């Protein structure tokens, strides 16, 4: 709102929400005309992630909440606490774009000849090793970050407690406005918020799974990370890097996705990777269009290489 006040012209009072948004956008643009802007795809992905998170949290708070009505109201009036959500939504959206790109460019596997195919159930008697178990837990934690149709989402277990609490309170406030005459249910809502906040701390998130996997791998981390890069298994790479840096998964994903190629070796230094192992990572990132690279513009791989980027 500060920007609106500074650029609104006399005679338009109060400004419509559309006009406010346009003026805010223009003010942002004038403040940094050379910076790349969000594409429609990035906007849509981030908005969808926010919507799925709100619906998920609302369902936990009170299954009777009409998530569609809630979201429609928030779309009209603005999503409360939007500034708290943007980092998470954008990081998840960018990670999703990256993974989708890799999935679509994967090499076609060699077909298995029907005669070679076995129809036995695999390894039912094989006990899982600790490493396999940790990897399985990481996969499960990662897949919790999708909805039923495979669209990207944020898992409640991955949110920091403050964000989760704030979101609960915002949704509860919306719900309270709906049921304001029903004091009994209002009290129930308050209880539900407190219970959910307490319970969230116990909900396993991808950070726990990443830390456990990193710890159990021990000196095998470089090899597993290199393998993850070669296989474009980006969740494992992000998880290992996040655990090594003691950063959140989302932060680490955003750091990788906004890094210039020259910055990758130092960013991934704790994983002790062979420089050549980084090549597929660099290639994959450069191919991702509309990245918010650290120099402020879109990645321009045809331009002169910054110092140290030649890979010699």
């Amino acid at each position, binding site marked *: 709102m500060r920007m609106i006040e500074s650029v609104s012209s006399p005679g338009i009072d109060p400004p419509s929400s559309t006009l406010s948004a346009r003026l805010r956008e223009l003010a942002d643009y004038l403040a940094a005309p050379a910076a790349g802007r969000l594409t429609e*795809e990035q906007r849509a992905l981030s908005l969808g992630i926010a919507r799925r998170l709100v619906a998920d949290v609302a369902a936990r708070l009170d299954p009777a909440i009409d998530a569609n009505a809630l979201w429609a109201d928030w779309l009209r009036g603005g999503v409360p606490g939007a500034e708290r959500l943007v980092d998470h939504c954008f990081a998840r959206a960018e990670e999703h774009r990256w993974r989708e790109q890799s999935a679509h460019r994967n*090499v076609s*596997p060699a077909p298995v000849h029907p005669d070679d195919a076995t129809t036995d159930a*695999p390894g*039912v008697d094989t006990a899982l090793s600790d490493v396999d178990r940790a990897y*399985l*837990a990481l996969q*499960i934690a990662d897949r919790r970050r999708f909805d039923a149709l495979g669209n990207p989402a944020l898992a409640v277990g991955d949110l920091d407690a403050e964000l989760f609490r704030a979101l609960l309170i915002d949704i509860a406030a919306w719900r309270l406005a709906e049921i304001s005459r029903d004091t009994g249910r209002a009290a129930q809502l308050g209880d539900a918020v407190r219970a959910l906040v307490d319970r969230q701390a116990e909900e396993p998130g991808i950070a726990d799974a990443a830390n456990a996997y990193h710890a159990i791998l021990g000196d095998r981390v470089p090899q597993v990370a290199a393998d993850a890069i070669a296989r474009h298994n980006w969740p494992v790479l992000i998880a290992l890097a996040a655990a090594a840096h003691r950063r959140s998964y989302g932060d680490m994903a955003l750091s990788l996705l906004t890094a210039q190629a020259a910055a990758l070796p130092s960013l991934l230094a704790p994983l002790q990777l062979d420089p050549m192992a980084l090549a597929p990572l660099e290639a994959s990132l450069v191919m991702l269009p509309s990245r918010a690279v650290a120099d402020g513009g879109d990645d321009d791989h045809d331009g002169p290489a910054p110092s140290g980027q030649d890979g010699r």
Partner: protein
Amino acid sequence: MNERIIRGRIDRSGVLVSADTPLLRLQQRAGSGLGKPLALPHLARLVALAQRLHRDISRPMYTADDHSNIHALVRIAPDADGASLEISDWRTGPTIHPQIPVIADSALTRQGWTWECDQQLRVVALRAASDAPSVPAGWEGRSLSELFELQPDEDGRFPVLRALGRQSRFDGQRVQADGPAGRIAMTLTGEPQFDAAGVFVGFRGSAELAEPQAQAQAAPLPGAVLTDPAFGSLPLSDPQFGRRIDGALRGPLSRIIATAETISGQFDGPIRADYARYAGDIAHAGRHLLGLVDDLADLQNIERPGFKAAADEIDLGDLARRAVGLLGMKAEEKGIRIDAPRVDDKMPATGEFRRVLQVLLNLLGNAIRYSPENSQIWIRVDRADDRAMITVADQGQGIDADQQAVVFEKFERLGRTDSGGSGLGLYIARRLARAMEGDLTVESAPGQGARFTLSLPARD
């Protein structure tokens, strides 16, 4: 990663003067060739950049022909006569339109679930659509075939297992799963997933609720009276049923038992004593179910029309000693002494060796199970006219006349509710005895123990 290096050479005017086959083929597909200007725009720009900078550069390279995307790493070394190219990590992939949803909206109705598993069929994701029954708790990491009880198709095959072998898509896999209000019939569809190295990493797909008639089969109406409470819905007349039961039940059960025993044995370190005890209970229950699977397979076999046992020349004394050898440890655990026929006690008879041993193991196992600790069991062989007989007698609580009339019925456990047996053993044993032209009878009285006698045609 492809470690092969593909080389090429560009002259000062940007003409490709030499190239290894993949690079040359790409140049040709782009409508050019050797001795002609480089027709790959991205690579040409990189060459121009290296020449302008007068230094080596290494960059990712992206290009495409009419049916595949290609990306690789190129190292360009400019010199006075042009530039040398070294291309590594050459990857090709089919051209796919981006932003295809992971699971197409049309593939999943609002009543379905979506799932994903790894290459070992361990489930890593399971979600319900908006109007679908909720997914069972504790699905994480379980086997797909454990979570969804696989049903064979009309040809007796399991589409998911066939697809696993071929790493291909599948549909129409009929399954039953645990819903919130009982078993539900569903149909699985799955797509194979591969990583960037082309390695199969699992399946991703949906599970849709089956038609109402399939639901009725999956979950019989409460109170509905079936002629046979256990077998009314089982395809006992199907000769492949016994074989299928192995794959569908024995594997998962074996894993449950092995895992529970691992926990119970605290192989991975100490755990709370009550948890270890629970795990022991799970293993025990698993073994019980495995025994039931064996019995069901047996039952299916012996109830088949025309079932016949082999007529081996056997010695009941020898078979009795073998049975004691197999179950002696179990008896010792309860301090039970078994008085078996001596080595020179022979009783020649005619019957199928393994089936007679199976009957004796059942009789002796029951005697051990229902005998008090530190008691005694006798096994005697005898002959009456043309019948060779072997009797197993115990000091258990005995069976009254009413119970004796039903003890050979299917699933009759005489009111016992422990997990000791399936209630099929004696039924199967008598069926086997009669299939060998013999019989199995019981004499007992409350408090007097029980005497089970197997009689078979005697042999001189």
